[in-house]
């Protein structure tokens, strides 16, 4: 074991960093903003100063990899879920993020890149995991909420290594600054003319109503594409469904009862038109369902709602609002459909379409297998891209 005196730390106070690559569906600008705010967290409470390296080697490098990436630890990334990122103690100066994760900024469906980055930067500075509840350095990443990001233990640990901030430097609250900046960033992106933002490859949910209108949800807005191809949006989610949270993780319109079902975290909302049914939102656990499903859809051949989550799927009986017996089962029943899909809908011809990043899979209920796949923004004209 290392004695304290040998704690691995940096011996200089001014450190540079570099974002080597980033997920394609996030703009470089928003990633740089989030990374800068994450470093600011630590400089606010210690005697460290960080600067983004414009060129040449940086002290700390942030990079995204997929699967095995030969970093000498043998710790390959494991696809969606599981391990999201890892980093090295000083003075190696590296933090690695799993490119296969659904990274998000600004509260969308997925893992918050700002919080994970702030945690991994802690490791690059020499901090280990903390057992303190709600510490940023807890091994299980915290959610970005309203409370302070750093706990007392995080601050104590970094000050033990690098000392307190010298008195005269301004302290900015990265959390709020970042949040406001990203909202503004997203708003300007939403307003830019051209294809809707979701065409870049990521949306939170997709479904189709009884008039065959497709609805695509992303963050606090949604777009509609009519059966004739007419588009509208971005429209504010809460203008039509006021009780919903800022963003959702799954949505499904059920032809069985002509109701809307929305999922986020541990809750499920059910609407008739835009009126919330009494008794909703409910806890998904009360229905025997998991929290944070990947996707949800009404599946006519079964006459029930289907929810995908990780390697399993759940069947919800919409009449009894209970999970059907003998479920969940393994996703392998759905031959060819991968894990981690972020949306699914049934087209008028009865075929089921599932989406993940830029790809789609078409599942044929008669053949009970995937019969087509490709890039949905390019190949499916009814997605409005």
């Amino acid at each position: 074991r290392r004695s304290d005196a040998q704690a691995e730390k940096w011996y200089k106070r001014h450190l540079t960093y570099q974002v080597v690559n980033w997920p394609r569906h996030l703009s470089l600008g928003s990633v740089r903003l989030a990374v800068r705010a994450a470093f600011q967290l630590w400089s606010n409470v210690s005697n460290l100063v960080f600067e983004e390296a414009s060129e040449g080697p940086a002290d700390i490098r942030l990079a995204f990899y997929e699967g095995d990436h030969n970093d000498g630890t043998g710790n390959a990334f494991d696809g969606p879920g599981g391990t999201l990122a890892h980093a090295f103690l000083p003075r190696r100066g590296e933090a690695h993020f799993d490119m296969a994760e659904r990274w998000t900024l600004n509260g969308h469906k997925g893992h918050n890149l700002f919080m994970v980055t702030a945690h991994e930067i802690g490791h690059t500075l020499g901090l280990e995991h903390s057992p303190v509840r709600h510490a940023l350095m807890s091994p299980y990443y915290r959610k970005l909420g309203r409370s302070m990001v750093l706990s007392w233990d995080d601050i104590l640990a970094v000050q033990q290594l690098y000392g307190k901030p010298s008195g005269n430097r301004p302290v900015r609250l990265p959390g709020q600054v970042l949040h406001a900046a990203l909202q503004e960033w997203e708003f300007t992106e939403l307003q830019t003319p051209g294809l809707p933002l979701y065409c870049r490859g990521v949306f939170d949910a997709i479904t189709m109503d009884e008039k065959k209108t497709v609805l695509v949800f992303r963050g606090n807005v949604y777009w509609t594409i009519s059966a004739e191809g007419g588009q509208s949006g971005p429209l504010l989610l809460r203008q039509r469904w006021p009780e919903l949270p800022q963003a959702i993780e799954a949505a499904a319109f059920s032809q069985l009862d002509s109701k809307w079902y929305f999922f986020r975290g541990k809750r499920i909302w059910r609407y008739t038109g835009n009126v919330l049914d009494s008794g909703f939102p409910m806890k998904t656990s009360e229905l025997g369902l998991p929290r944070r499903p990947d996707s949800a859809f009404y599946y006519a051949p079964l006459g029930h709602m289907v929810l995908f989550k990780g390697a399993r799927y759940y069947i919800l009986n919409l009449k009894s609002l209970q999970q059907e017996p003998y479920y969940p089962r393994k996703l392998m029943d759905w031959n060819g459909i991968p894990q981690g899909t972020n949306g699914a809908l049934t087209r008028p011809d009865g075929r089921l379409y599932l989406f993940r990043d830029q790809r789609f899979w078409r599942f044929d209920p008669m053949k009970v297998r995937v019969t087509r796949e490709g890039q949905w923004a390019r190949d499916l004209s009814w997605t409005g891209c």
Partner: protein
Amino acid sequence: VPARGSPLVVDPQDFLEKYGYLHHEHQIHNSVEIHSAIREFQWLSHLPITGELDSATLLQMAEPRCGVSDEGSQKNWGQRVNLIFTGRRRPQRRR
């Protein structure tokens, strides 16, 4: 395209070895080691400390997390707390 992704069910022994609760070099762990490792994980995860692989513990193991080992977090935290209350670093015991 083969389905990829992390299994919802995690192999507990792999997990405890990967995150520093059981040491790799001991391929076969006796029950005392395993119970102690589970208790330490439950302590750090703020779960009821039963030493058993109950459902809450298995669910927590399957949650998304950081890939860095948890080894040392308890000891260093103890030192930090000690620093708060005594203002002194506890001298390192030499084994």
